[in-house]
């Protein structure tokens, strides 16, 4: 089983539903240490993508580029901008292809992580979405079976939350609250956990 346009569309549908569901959760996670808009960012972004989902090209590079552009226009929040950058990076990586293998996921996620880091200038280990992506890239490395990749990715995002929960935020709005952030999930990591599990179809 490979990832193609139909799989992308199905993933978009699951992800859009998950973000509707998590609207309040993400807003309040962000509100505790930031400005409380993360649920808004994600639902708006997914609406914009869903609007384009029916006529996505077969070329997965072009399809992901269209998704990134739609997302980008919908908001300029930190998270939205970083995600769009990540999608754009993946889009470049698969340009001209209509199918990709599960084995490629790790490399694509790692590339997204690196480009997002270049844009946002945060460190790996700083308790941000970068750490979730880093965990996914590492956990899926070397795996080729789609189900195994999905399982590993879903486990990795939760493990990352556990691993970073007791650390201090170092970047973005949450940084200001230093100690108050200890014991709380980083909202962007929390969102990435929900995203990855929806895309990987490993919810609940």
């Amino acid at each position: 089983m490979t990832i193609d346009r139909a799989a992308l569309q199905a993933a978009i549908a699951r992800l859009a539903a998950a973000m509707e569901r998590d609207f309040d959760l993400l807003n309040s996670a962000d509100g505790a240490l930031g400005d409380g808009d993360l649920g808004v960012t994600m639902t708006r972004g997914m609406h914009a993508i869903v609007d384009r989902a029916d006529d996505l090209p077969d070329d997965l590079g072009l399809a992901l580029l269209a998704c990134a552009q739609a997302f980008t226009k919908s908001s300029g929040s930190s998270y939205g901008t970083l995600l769009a950058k990540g999608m754009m990076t993946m889009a470049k990586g698969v340009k001209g292809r209509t199918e990709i293998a599960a084995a490629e996921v790790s490399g694509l996620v790692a590339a997204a992580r690196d480009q997002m880091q270049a844009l946002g200038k945060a460190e790996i280990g700083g308790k941000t979405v970068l750490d979730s992506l880093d965990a996914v890239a590492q956990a899926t490395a070397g795996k080729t079976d789609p189900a195994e990749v999905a399982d590993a990715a879903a486990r990795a995002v939760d493990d990352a939350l556990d691993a970073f929960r007791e650390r201090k935020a170092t970047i973005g709005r949450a940084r200001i609250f230093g100690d108050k952030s200890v014991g709380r999930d980083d909202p962007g990591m929390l969102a990435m956990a929900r995203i990855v599990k929806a895309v990987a179809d490993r919810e609940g």
Partner: protein
Amino acid sequence: MKKILNAPEAYVDEMLAGLVAAHPDYYRLHGDTGKVIARATPGRAGKVGIVTGGGSGHLPVFTGYVGTGLLDACAIGDVFASPSAEQMADAIRAADQGAGVLRLYGNYGGDVMNFDMAGDLVDFDDIACSTVLLADDVASAPPEEAEKRRGVAGMVYAFKIAGAAAEEGRDLAAVTAVAQKAADACRSVGVALSPCTVPQAGKPTFEIAEDEIEMGMGIHGEPGVWRGKLQSADAIAAEMMDRLLADMPLKAGDRVSVLVNSLGATPPEELYILYNVVKARLEGAGATIVMPLVGRYATSMEMAGVSFTLCKLDAELEALLQAPCDCAFWRVG
């Protein structure tokens, strides 16, 4: 959510439509993103352009300060959300009169990333860009990490001073330098009494008890550095002045402007009550107050609370602060 609106998704577009309809002599929509406001009459050819950008919900910040002696254009996002890089690029294009454009905006992750990307986009148009970030909120990082601070109401001084320098005909390097000097001269701190509601979120960003205040909160409803009991106006003002003066001590003979700013719901009556303490403290330090500003200059919609901003002036900054400017929300001279 008790707000007067139609659909949350339409809040910003309808707001901008009304702004332009009410003040056609000052503002126009530029480009086709629907989220870029430019001067109704562009600045003269050869003038350095000044552009800003940021989320909606802060009027007069950001769009309101587009005007003569102030900004040339502004990209405006959803409530409390950065505009996109594309919108910022459009705003930079609207501001350009052939002498380059200063990007002058608050230090927020989303804005920084997007303005950086916007700079890449307008590289193709051969528009020279410079950047000055406002980072005046002393509550958001200690002095050692001053560059990490958020930008809040201090941007009003930076817009005014940089805008006057550009209007005078200075070149991009000079406008950028004086904007940086103004940004460096500002310190702000805020206190919230009640939260505000982002229309699309539908409920207040934070909860706060009837007898509590939140000191050091941001202008997007970010929580403050501490929460405590509501105190007297004198005690609140004293604590805020302590924090500002600890960060930027003043000595006899210093000249300083001060902005006593309502975050929205707090009425001017209460700002004037606070101003008595502010004045006494500044004069007590031997400083002379220049052009004090009291009112709603940088808000968070219906949030109750206030911020104080000090802007320490040298002769150049003072002259630029007092130069004429004109927009629908503020006139000097």
